[in-house]
């Protein structure tokens, strides 16, 4: 500890009325603290250990995996499993690996994220500032819809999508993702905009700005922290989705998660744990990167409502 230079002699009382007390309070370790750190350490271990096993296994050869020392480090950094997962292996047969799934996921996630965030911001803006008649009831219904599990709507949605004759296409899966995301994004942006002083909106009206101008010139730039938060939430949520991709995308557009499942759930032959681990890590990589890159913004956006300015 850097404070040790000014730390008092052993046994010196740091809590009670001490006439010698001056300046920075000396650091100390209470037993409760130690217990706390042990608990936190164990919790962290609980989450890190599976990740460690995955990482280590993915670099092993098939022979090493069969030795069943799951915590042992690999003898060498063997990239065969990663290569197989990315471009050759599909579980039971030779095929392009999950790289096609990766690009399918990009094609689904990017437009669905952008659309759901922008529409959410727009609806939130309308509900907070223009307050049409029944806005609160409408908002209540939107939020309520967000609480109902989407599996409930699955069959009716399939029928509707089939009616419009886009079932099994990229459009279908993107559209369904946007629709199911709206309750969350509308909720986020509506609550963000409600905290912004109404005077600002009125000042813009006096300046002559209209419905769209106020949104694009004023309210959208102001919501940058929330755009980042909603963007990350939507990106990770849609990327990690399995069900909607499985049901709506059709065989040609299956996202990465569905292909990963195809690789991992083999019904015959030998289970290639190292390839499975590599494929799983590849699937999880992009959301992780997105989170790390924008983590600072994410925290700032989450707490934006709490701190003024």
């Amino acid at each position, binding site marked *: 500890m850097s404070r040790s230079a000014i730390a008092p002699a052993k046994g010196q009382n740091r809590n009670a009325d001490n006439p010698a007390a001056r300046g920075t309070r000396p650091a100390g370790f209470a037993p409760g603290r130690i217990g706390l750190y042990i608990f936190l350490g164990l919790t962290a271990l609980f989450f890190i250990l599976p990740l460690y096993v995955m990482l280590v296994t993915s670099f092993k050869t098939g022979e090493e995996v069969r030795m069943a020392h799951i915590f042992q480090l690999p003898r060498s950094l063997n990239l065969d499993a990663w290569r197989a997962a990315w471009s050759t292996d599909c579980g039971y047969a030779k095929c392009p690996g999950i790289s096609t799934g990766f690009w399918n996921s990009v094609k689904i996630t990017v437009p669905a994220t952008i659309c759901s965030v922008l529409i959410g911001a727009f609806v939130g803006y309308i509900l907070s500032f223009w307050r049409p008649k029944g806005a609160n009831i409408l908002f209540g219904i939107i939020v309520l819809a967000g609480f109902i599990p989407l599996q409930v709507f699955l069959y009716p949605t399939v029928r509707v999508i089939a009616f419009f004759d886009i079932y099994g296409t990229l459009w279908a899966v993107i559209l369904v993702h946007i629709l199911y995301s709206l309750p969350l994004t509308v909720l986020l942006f509506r609550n963000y905009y409600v905290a912004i002083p109404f005077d*600002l909106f*009125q000042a813009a*009206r*006096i300046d*002559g*700005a*209209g419905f769209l*101008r106020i949104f694009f010139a004023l309210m959208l730039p*102001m919501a940058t922290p929330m755009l980042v938060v909603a963007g990350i939430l939507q990106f990770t949520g849609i990327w990690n989705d399995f069900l909607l991709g499985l049901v709506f995308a059709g065989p040609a557009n299956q996202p990465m998660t569905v292909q990963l499942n195809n690789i991992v759930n083999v019904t015959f032959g030998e289970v290639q744990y190292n390839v499975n681990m590599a494929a799983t890590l590849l699937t999880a990589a992009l959301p992780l990167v997105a989170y790390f890159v924008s983590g600072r913004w994410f925290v700032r956006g989450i707490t934006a409502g709490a701190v003024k300015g």
Partner: protein
Amino acid sequence: MTPILDIKQASIAYGDIVVVPALDLSVAPGEFIVLLGPSGCGKSTLLSAIAGLTDLHDGQIWIRDKNVTWAEPKDRGIGMVFQSYALYPRMTVEQNLSFGMKVAGVDKATIRSKVAEVARILQLEPLLTRRPSDLSGGQRQRVAIGRALVRDVDVFLFDEPLSNLDAKLRNELRIEIKRLHEELQRTMVYVTHDQVEAMTLADRIVVMKSGHIQQVGTPSEVYNTPANLFVARFVGSPAMNMLEGRLQGDVVTLGQCARLSVAGYPLPAGAGGPVLVGIRP
């Protein structure tokens, strides 16, 4: 002289609650009008109705011989300064000042000269490239005033513009606003609950209470000849002392024995009986 701002029988209601019942007020061109009253008296509501941000329940608002009752805020020929400044946080001072003109499609050269002129009047030149978050409270409010000034309008509306500032700045900006009024000779409608601001700034003060106008008059009229008890008690600091007494002729008897001659005061003819005597300390 025709009034530049004429409010005719205006009433404002939120749902069934009438905030301002049928109110009349005429403002002459170049006048500095202060709406004074305790919080919740409807003065800010009235101001936002003049601005067109709140709809009237009944009545009319005329600005420069045009009925603007149903007009959009931008078409009314008004500029407004808010208590919370309401500056656009993601824009620089210059962009804040020019936003309205940009929306209106004014050409760039005009915008630049207009912004430069207002910046000179309000001494904002060194701040033009800064964001509102980098400004002090007083500077922010000067920018907010500037945003109203560039609009080049007939009537300026001020909604408690100084109440978020500390006492020293409040004094400085009060003088600044008065100076602006004298320099520009524009009509200003100014809402405040601070009677010092009202007394020092106003050509005429409108004292309001629960939506009703209590008295309209110059600061000295309101101070010296209050129309009713409310105005007498509300205006003046320290407050007026109220004593019960009896009036006989031009002598008031206070309590048992104290006698006070009120000969010089304008009393209604034949007044007498129990009275309340207001004495300013």
